């Protein structure tokens, strides 16, 4: 009985528990609520994915009103998979959060932080699950507003300006998406995504639709921080509380890339986007620029979190590169990297949180030689870093492998070489951190100050996600299977 209503529970459960957090106030209680809700959402996402894999598409009419009149939630293999990523990351990050949040956020604001987190989870799940374009905009704003609040919860004052800039650019991006939805509605008279996909065919050569397409593409690219539009991203992830950085870096960009996929492949259609508008060429160039500018900028950072943020820009480039190849293998690599990058970047940001917890800093100059005092955290960083570079036996390798295969399928040797070069740049910035943290000797005499390893409540979740990095790197059949099925489905079941 209840299994019928799983799609709506995915969104409603975190939404209902968010105000409860405001009422409870005690930070331990609030954390328990957030933890419980995240794991519940994760369980719901797993059940939904299983249901989709067995029975195919799930359509849920909100309040019993059938679509086009009511809002429908529509789940196919693509969004069921993205839901799994979001809620999975949410549960791991929440298991990890307690000590780190206590350390980094003023005690009287902690309950608000968890409230914002739950609202963010609501928004992200809503964006992914909904089958209505305007409803998607509303959920985008719920997710964005709560993420600005999460970022500004940090005690570092730079976080305020970072959140403000993100707010301005994020709102511009969301408003662009709104304009696009409005123009689509003007031409087709519907907001339902499945309906839009059918009706847009008749009017797709009009100038209005071209304008809608342009507004949408730029708007959504601001939202996930594609290279020339990434201005807000580095500072937002650097100065946010570590828990927020770990959660947002693993989920926000993934969700907006999902929005891009949904609009490009489901609504506008493959032929229109790639044969008429030639978006693949633009995306290819921009993705390569993102990979190289992001990686090069990362090399010059002296702050671990800022380095990871710039590396995110590069990794977003890899995802877009996969999409821009418009082949089953390329798209599959892009979708795989959604999952894999969520695992990698969340793990690395969590490791950075462990360092901050013990040393009150993530600047390289304050962290000389600390790797030897915190061997387990250091080990986690190294494995996460290897995964980011894309060494075999880690998840990073799987997505790079399929990306290179996709490039070779097209006989683009130069692209394969560029992808490898990009990975080499990742070696440079990861090595730089390892060198300082492990091989340089500390300025302070390590005999006098004995720094302990991070607390177990932080280390265990870090290692869970690091082991997931290895597990899905060795046994990739599950994720590659789903990604291939999704790619085939998006390209029109061919």
């Amino acid at each position, binding site marked *: 009985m209840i299994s019928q209503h799983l799609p709506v529970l995915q969104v409603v459960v975190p939404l209902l528990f968010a105000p409860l957090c405001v009422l409870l106030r005690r930070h331990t209680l609030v954390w328990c609520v957030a933890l419980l809700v995240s794991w519940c959402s994760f369980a719901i996402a797993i059940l939904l994915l299983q249901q989709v894999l067995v029975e195919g598409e799930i359509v849920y009419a909100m309040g019993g009103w059938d679509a086009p009149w009511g809002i429908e939630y529509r789940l196919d293999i693509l969004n069921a998979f993205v839901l799994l990523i979001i809620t999975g990351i949410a549960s791991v990050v929440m298991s990890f959060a307690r000590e780190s949040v206590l350390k980094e956020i003023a005690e009287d604001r902690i309950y608000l932080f968890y409230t914002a987190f739950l609202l963010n989870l609501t928004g992200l799940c809503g964006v992914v699950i909904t089958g209505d374009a305007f409803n998607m905009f509303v959920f985008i704003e719920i997710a964005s507003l709560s993420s600005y609040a999460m970022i500004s919860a940090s005690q570092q004052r730079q976080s*305020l300006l970072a959140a403000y800039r993100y707010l301005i650019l994020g709102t511009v991006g969301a408003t662009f998406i709104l*304009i696009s939805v409005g123009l689509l509605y003007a031409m087709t008279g519907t907001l339902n995504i499945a309906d839009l996909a059918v009706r847009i065919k008749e009017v797709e050569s009009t100038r209005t639709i071209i304008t809608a397409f342009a507004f949408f593409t730029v708007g959504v690219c601001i939202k996930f921080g594609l290279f020339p539009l990434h201005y807000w991203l580095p500072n937002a992830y650097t100065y946010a509380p570590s828990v927020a950085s770990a959660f947002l870096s693993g989920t926000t960009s993934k969700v907006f890339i999902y929005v891009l996929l949904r609009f490009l492949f489901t609504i506008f259609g493959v032929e229109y986007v790639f044969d008429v508008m030639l978006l693949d060429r633009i995306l290819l160039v921009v993705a390569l620029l993102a990979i190289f500018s992001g990686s090069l900028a990362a090399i010059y950072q002296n702050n671990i979190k800022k380095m990871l943020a710039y590396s995110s820009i590069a990794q977003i480039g890899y995802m877009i590169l996969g999409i821009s190849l418009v082949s089953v293998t390329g798209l599959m690599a892009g979708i795989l990297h959604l999952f894999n990058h969520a695992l990698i970047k969340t793990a690395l940001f969590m490791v950075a949180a462990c360092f901050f917890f013990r040393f009150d800093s993530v600047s390289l100059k304050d962290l000389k030689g600390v790797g030897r005092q915190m061997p387990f955290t250091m080990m986690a960083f190294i494995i996460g870093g290897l995964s980011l570079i894309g060494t075999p036996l880690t998840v990073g390798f799987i997505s790079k492998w399929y990306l290179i295969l996709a490039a070779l399928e097209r006989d683009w040797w130069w692209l394969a070489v560029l992808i490898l070069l990009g990975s080499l740049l990742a070696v440079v910035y990861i090595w730089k951190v390892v060198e300082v943290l492990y091989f340089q000797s500390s300025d302070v005499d390590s005999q006098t100050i004995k720094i302990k390893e991070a607390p177990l409540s932080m280390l265990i979740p870090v290692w869970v996600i690091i082991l997931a990095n290895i597990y899905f790197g060795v046994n990739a059949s599950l994720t590659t299977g789903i990604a291939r099925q999704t790619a085939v489905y998006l390209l029109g079941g061919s």
Partner: protein
Amino acid sequence: MENLLGLYNYWVAIALMMMGFYIVIANGNLIKKLIGLNIFQVSVFILFISMGYMKNGTAPIYSEAYTLYAAPLPHVLILTAIVVGIATTALGLALTIRIYQAYGSIDETEITKIDLMDMNS
């Protein structure tokens, strides 16, 4: 001429959009940026509302006497979008207050300067 007068609302929407967008980009004052953002959003509201408008149409309440109605859906959507816009403005202003408390300034270039000095010291 037809395009100029017939699409009057749309021209206004575009003019407002560009003005708002320019203020957001060009002004360093955090409050003025938010004002620009509001103008930008309002232009989109006008765009939506114009789409739903019917010349000589009445409010969409069913009655025998009328046959021509304005489309209600865009108007309803904009009610939602206005609420979203208010929430954004409120959050933006709240952040501005906290920025002022932390830095003693609401000018973006000045704040960046203070941050740079912090980093070097």
